[in-house]
């Protein structure tokens, strides 16, 4: 009797409150991906020099200094942009993955009680047969 009462309460929870709670957790994970991959910060500094690696231009005009400055500056920004692009890309993949993962979780969650019964039934059939 107790078991039936728990199952009844559980199933009600499974298809009502649990769906809302999964949504909250899903939102948390989506936020976490953005936070972990620092998407906002990296996007706003996408083309900034890599770790501020720059050379000085020198006090007097000098073509060699200027060329060095321009090349290092460009190189530094390119390196920065490449690495940031990789992380932003990974972040976006994580973002999409988490989003799709959330959808899958919802689908699986709705089916879970049936999946459980099927797995148990199939497994026991295989053991008995």
């Amino acid at each position, binding site marked *: 009797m*107790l078991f039936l*009462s*728990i199952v*009844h*309460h*559980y199933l009600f*929870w*499974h298809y009502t*409150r*649990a769906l809302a*709670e999964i949504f909250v*957790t899903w939102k*948390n*994970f989506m*936020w*976490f991906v953005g*936070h*972990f*991959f*620092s998407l906002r*910060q*990296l996007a706003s*500094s996408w083309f*900034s*020099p*890599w*770790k*501020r*690696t720059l050379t000085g231009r020198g006090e007097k005009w000098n073509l060699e200094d200027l060329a060095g400055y321009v090349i290092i500056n460009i190189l530094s920004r390119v390196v*920065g942009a490449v*690495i*940031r692009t990789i*992380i932003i890309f990974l972040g976006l993949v994580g973002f999409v993955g988490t989003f799709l993962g959330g959808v899958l979780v919802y689908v699986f969650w709705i089916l*879970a*009680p049936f*999946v*459980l*019964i099927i*797995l*148990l039934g*199939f*497994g*026991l*059939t*295989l*053991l*008995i*047969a």
Partner: protein
Amino acid sequence: MNTLREDIQQYKPAMSLNRLVSRKTLHGARVFLFIVFVLSGGGYVASTFVLDGQYAQPLLGVSLVALAFWLEAMLAFFYSNSYYFRGLGSLLGIDTTTQAGTTYDVAEVVIKNEHDVSEAFCSSSFGSTVLFRAGVNQSAIEEYLRNPRQQITADMVTLPEEEIFSLTGLGKYLLKHDRAFVDMLAHSGVSSETFMGALRWVVGSVHQEKRAAQWWSKDNLSRTKGIGREWSYGHAFLLQKFARDIRTSAVFSTLSANTPFALEKITQIEASLARAKEANVLLIGEAGVGKIDLIMAVQRRMQTGKSLDAIGGQQMIVLDTNRLFATHNDKQSLELTLLGIFDEAVQSGNIIIVIENLSVFMREAESMGIYIPELIDRYLSAPNIHLVGTDTPGAYHTYLETKGGFVRRFSEILIDAPDLSATTRVLQNIALQHEAKYQTFFTYPSLQALTVASDRYIVEGVLPDKAIALLIDVASAAKQQGLTFITGDFVYSVVSDKTGVPAGPISDSERDILLNLEDKLHQQVIGQEHALSAIARTMRRARAGIQSADKPIGSFLFLGPTGVGKTETAKALANVFFGGEDKLERIDMSEFSGADAVSKLIGDGESAGALPTLLREHPYSVILLDEFEKANQSVHDIFLQVLDEGIFTDSRGTKVNARNTIIIATSNAGSQLILNTVQQRKELSTLSAEIISSIIKAGIYRPELINRFDSTIIFEPLSIPQQTEVASMMLDGLYQRVKERGYQLTVGTDLLNALVQKGYSPEFGARPMQRVLQDVIEEKIAQKIISGSVQKGDTIKLVLADFSEAELAV
């Protein structure tokens, strides 16, 4: 409105499940089933491809069944979690949405007996922990439950509509509605405040455990540091070389960062660091108040994206000044390194340099010829660099303030020592950490006692630092004595042992001393009934705790002619209160009459003064200020503060504590008036106001100074019978000394009376008596010993007839 009974119904199925299979077992089952699933699944694959499918079918069957049960365990776990953590975010202030209803913890308690909520509370593991922490013993709880009382059912408890009804709410409800419960607490000596303190402590630790367990909450996920945030900033190689781990200086717990006080200071620090320029902060607070802890909290908020946007992504680096000075032995190389460090920090753009004890760093640099304000001034106004310095108020006032413009580059934030209740909250966490280590159990009253006792009796350090140190001492003492249950009384006994000051509950022997204090003092002091009675009354008030704790234990102004027992009374007080005459510390105030009196007394920046030195070396003693009237007026002014607050600031800006001393100022002022009063056979006690008023009129003491003393005591000149008693006491000492030389001594009454007449002087008290005894009796004994007229073991009998007129006339 929902009742408690209605609301807890929702938890019953989840609780039934947890009773069938506990959360711990559920976790173990999940792990076990997953392993079975993986192994049997692996076995199925191996069997299919290696063993021609010989055991494939049963292995697949086991694997699928294990998977099914694992899935069930997972679903059950989610189900359990859903109820277990309900309302936690709201209670911790993390969720902004308002929730109502009760929590799983309350339901878990009440469900044990819905018809008797008090019984359910007392018999639950949570409730009994709270009651033990509060200091209620098991027999009191059992008696309370056994006795007839009005029962509170879950139906009677109405839940609030706009807040969660937590365990704290349940405790408050019981206090408000269960009279017998409050009586039980009162009979156990536990106040409602203590019970609520214990309740909040236990609830707080339950919430912290739950908070840590809920790893998927936004709060916990946000603790992870994001990657790549510092990529748009530069390197600071040189600074890293001289960096130190910030955690090596912290004393607070993470919990204390959530207090309103800490949050206010964190907001101030962040706002100052977020300024467009001159974004430097100077944290001023005594050592141990938690300055670095606040900096750590700001750093944590910056790392987890909770700080102001303007300082997000910044990193704090603590400059290891010791290593800096140890690795540089000349001015030029140190200057270059410092400039390099600051240049790097500017280049990086996200560095906040933290320098602990800024004035010490600057002084050390100064000793190498480097003037820091000049060297780093241009950096302090730059937008890309922040400097956070810490210092004590004393050092700030005496050193940094004199640097004028340099200090104006900083936003000054004053960090006060936490108040007593905040200190007790800090101790809650520390106590839990040390309970396992020392195998002890701290009650809440013991934490209250630790807070009060460290504030009142521990002179060195500030709260919460000294309270934490005392907690460790107490835990260690308890372990040595095989004690597991630490009570408030035990804390006070450790404090008494440590300081020598009677603290906490009054023991039977001490009660006897206090009630008969006049008699105890009379064993050393002859006469002076009025004086000793006034002293005894004041000391009883002090020990009973009625007197303010923010003053010395007692303070007296002893007025009277010389030799009437003023110093002897001070000695007797030291003996009775601190266990020995060696606890009497004397300052000759006539030495503080010149122009340099103040600097001699409290120091002059270079050398420590006489009073701070004495109080630091003897914080628990009787301080005798001899010939107080001879001290300079400005010295009297310093004592206005000492007597009023029990604390003063020395020349170095350090606070000096005099609250564990008895301060006695002796003075001959008004002696003539006192003598005249006695000669006119007037009642001295009725004329004391007149005497004090004449002293004030004469400008010897100002009225505000006299009023600061707990009591002004007038010592009367000795009468002839009293002088005889004094002489007898002096002779007792002489008998002992003669006995130690191997002789016995008896002095006839006729001789004693003659000597008393000779030595009696209302003006000079007992002092001439001592001289007479020395010149007459001691001289005679010396003659007898040297002439050989007495042998070892003989009794020297002295009567009046043994002395010639000339011998008596010395």
